[in-house]
């Protein structure tokens, strides 16, 4: 009987006329595709199309193509479904995957168009006029009291601690363990340089990164990995991770292979054990329990802002309202396209709702209850470009989080094999020979370049919209129009169709 019925997804071809037999490809491939027996050979079945070999081959001798093997077409039984069945029939278990939902669900962002000024109001030139992106995250009072005192005005109220961001873009939580320490280093350096924050994810924070505390949000998830009082105070805010867009309803998964000495000491768990976060927080079985944890964390941190991260699920608006009323200062919405280091494909691809819709209903719900000022909203899980940033803010986000985009900036090819720990780019791996490949300074520079580019683009759009501060875009759905969305989706988004 055949051992493996799943055919290779990609074919690796080495042009032996060009190949100088330098063996760089063998060294570079994290998945063990290449071998050398008189000449370079390739085992295509192991290839994930991460392109590391292609980029590093000095002779451009390697090509990777999609396996053209023909399957009899069937519109219901697409090849991926057949392959999944072969895999599970061969070895029982859930099919694991990495990164975000890759199914072609409707992308609402791609059906939203942005307005611009013509004649009746002037556009503003961002090259010549100030264009402000500064954003404060956290609870704000509904009003301020200002007294007139001796001809001077004096503030007679206090605003709670807020996180000041120079740009409305932050780095989403990606845990140390799931990604390498060098990845965390690059994110921290870039966050500091950009005047924004990185989120630790649920794996604690390596002591070496404590000096970046003004640019870090520390996460506290159901596994409580690496959570201790010094850690809780090693950032500007604490985030309670209830859910993640890629895997709503289940906890984080980190295979034991990725848990070496440093990860073990940071996470405070034994080396080599699987780090499986419980699906729920076992001290949060209801909203009143969440309130207790929020206030416990506030007490532990001298009342720093507390963020609550949830996956966008069907009833997200009511859940968000509950979170705001439970005392959270920030609600972090992670859409169903959000990335992950490891998740069952069935969850990643089929559970949750799009960020755009969740964001729209949460913002609307909080406004209808008059409590929008109580919390800031961060939108993440599906932000791919500066256009998405603009649209998310117009739908009601205070800021956005980027994870996948940040990894792509540092070399990630979206091969979706993070859970194997073999990342050839040194990002989603703990193998020392691989992690050394990502130079944190190089990575940081690329992150800074990317985010600065997006900031420039956001400013350009603000100028075209005739506003010079990002708060005039925030929640301003009047400046969006829908093209090709159905009536009920437009109604939910509170966005008019193009032409109206």
């Amino acid at each position, binding site marked *: 009987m055949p051992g493996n019925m799943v055919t290779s997804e990609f074919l690796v071809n080495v042009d032996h006329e060009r190949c100088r037999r330098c063996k760089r490809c063998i060294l570079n491939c994290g998945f063990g595709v290449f071998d050398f027996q008189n000449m370079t050979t390739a085992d295509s079945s192991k290839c994930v199309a991460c392109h590391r070999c292609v980029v590093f081959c000095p002779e451009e001798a390697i090509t990777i193509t999609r396996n053209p093997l023909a399957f009899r077409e069937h519109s219901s039984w697409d090849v991926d479904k057949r392959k999944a069945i072969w895999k599970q029939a061969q070895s029982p278990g859930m099919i694991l995957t990495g990164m975000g939902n890759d199914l072609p669900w409707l992308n609402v962002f791609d059906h939203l168009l942005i307005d611009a*000024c013509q004649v*009746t*109001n*002037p556009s*503003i030139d961002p090259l010549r*006029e*100030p264009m*402000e992106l*500064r954003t*404060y995250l956290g609870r*704000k*009072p*509904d*009003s*301020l*009291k*200002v007294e*007139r005192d001796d001809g*001077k*005005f*004096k*503030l007679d*109220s206090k*605003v709670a601690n*807020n996180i000041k961001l120079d740009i409305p873009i932050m780095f989403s939580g990606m845990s140390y363990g799931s990604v390498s320490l060098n990845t965390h280093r690059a994110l921290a350096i870039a966050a500091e340089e950009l005047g924004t924050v990185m989120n630790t994810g649920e794996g604690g924070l390596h002591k070496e990164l404590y000096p970046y505390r003004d640019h870090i949000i520390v996460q506290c998830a159901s596994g409580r990995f690496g959570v201790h009082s010094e850690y809780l105070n090693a950032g500007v805010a604490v985030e309670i991770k209830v859910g993640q867009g890629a895997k709503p309803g289940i906890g984080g998964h980190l295979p034991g292979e990725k848990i070496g000495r440093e990860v073990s000491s940071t996470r405070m768990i034994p080396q080599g054990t699987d780090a499986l976060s419980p699906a729920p927080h076992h001290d949060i079985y209801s909203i009143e329990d969440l309130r207790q944890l929020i206030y416990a964390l506030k007490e532990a941190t001298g009342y720093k802002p507390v963020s609550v991260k949830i996956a966008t699920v069907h009833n997200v608006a009511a859940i968000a309202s509950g979170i705001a009323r439970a005392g959270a200062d920030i609600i972090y919405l992670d859409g169903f396209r959000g990335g992950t280091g490891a998740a069952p494909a069935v969850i990643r691809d089929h559970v949750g709702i799009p960020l755009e819709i969740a964001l729209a209903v949460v913002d609307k719900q909080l*406004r209808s209850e*008059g409590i*929008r*000022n109580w919390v800031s909203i961060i939108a993440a899980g599906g932000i791919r470009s500066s256009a998405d940033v603009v649209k998310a803010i117009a739908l009601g986000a205070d800021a956005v989080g980027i994870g996948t985009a940040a990894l792509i900036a540092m070399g990630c090819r979206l091969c979706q094999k993070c859970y194997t720990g073999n990342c050839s780019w040194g990002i989603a791996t703990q193998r020392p020979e691989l992690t050394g490949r990502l130079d944190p300074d190089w990575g940081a520079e690329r992150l800074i370049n990317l985010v600065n580019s997006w900031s420039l683009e956001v400013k350009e759009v603000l100028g075209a*919209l*005739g*506003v*010079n*501060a990002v*708060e*005039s*875009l*925030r*929640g*301003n*759905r*009047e*400046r969006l129009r829908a093209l090709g969305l159905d009536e009920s989706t437009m109604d939910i988004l509170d966005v*008019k169709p193009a032409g*109206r």
Partner: protein
Amino acid sequence: MSKLAFGDQYSTWKVDTSKVPAACGLSGVISEDGNRMSGEIIIESMRVIHDRGNGLGGGFAGYGIYPQNAGHHAMHIMFEDEAGKAACEAMLAEELEVASAEEIPTAPSAAIVNPPLLWRYFALPRGEKVKASGLADDDFMVRLVMKINTTVPGTFVFSSGKNMGVFKAVGFAEDVGAFYRLGEYQAYTWIGHGRFPTNTPGWWGGAHPFNILDWAVVHNGEISSYGINKRYLEMFGYECTLLTDTEVMAYLFDLLIRKHGLPMEIACKVLAAPFWKDIDADEDVDEKELYESLRMVYASALVNGPFAVIVGYSRGMLGLNDRIKLRPLIAATKDDLLYVSSEESAIRQICPKPDRVWAPNAGQPVIGQLKGDV
């Protein structure tokens, strides 16, 4: 067939919340000593900037015009027909003590086509109704005005303050002033407006000033941040039902000053917020914290995009530009008089030799205040 004055827009402004771009000409004058001036002065000023309007809306507000009824809300109401008037009067009788009612005197002319019924009522809220509502008097009145304007067909309350009144119509400002016989009123503050809407036939209610209680706002500009300003106001119970940006401006003043108790100067710093670079450079730590906090808390009340606005209120008059001065605004003083206008010509027409003329900087309010009682 409804009258042209309300026209097809009538059905639209009750349901559609989209806005209509409009450019305009403005003028205002206040006597800080409280000396009353005939309405002729503001008509004369507006006449010079005729070309800033296109005949699709003109209007005025005067403060101090009803000294005999100073304690009552002067409700100026336009009715499309007798049925609307009857329905509205029934509601008024239920909610208010109406001391007197009369038709607003007009001088019909060819320049003003198809006027609606124009009436004014001097009234006070019924104590027991206010008590039952659990609201303060002013909030009760705001809610009543919004209720009439959104639920009573063919009815529009266009003025509801005390000892002040708004007069507006479809037409050029100077024709509107003559139509309402403004020369027969004496006010210590006058503001005027000529409208240039770009894609509406114009309707009487959409002309400026826009009024809510004591506030009368004339406005030249298009609010690029309208969508969020409107949604912000909705959180505090304001319903933006008109087709103009101006009501947003009026409600923001009402919210910030009357409800939140912010000083006028500070409200201006919310609407036309100083830039972060200037706040960051402020060496006065307290002031820096004040402005930083204002921008944090009132981010959604920042009015972005071009505007010049003149706001009348019982104790004063304000002129304000957007934060980068994208619309014209000129100010001048002469003795106890402060003038603010879109154009210097409109000031010089009624004050040929001002003591001082200047162009206020972006976001810097010009405020004239009554020195004593009037």
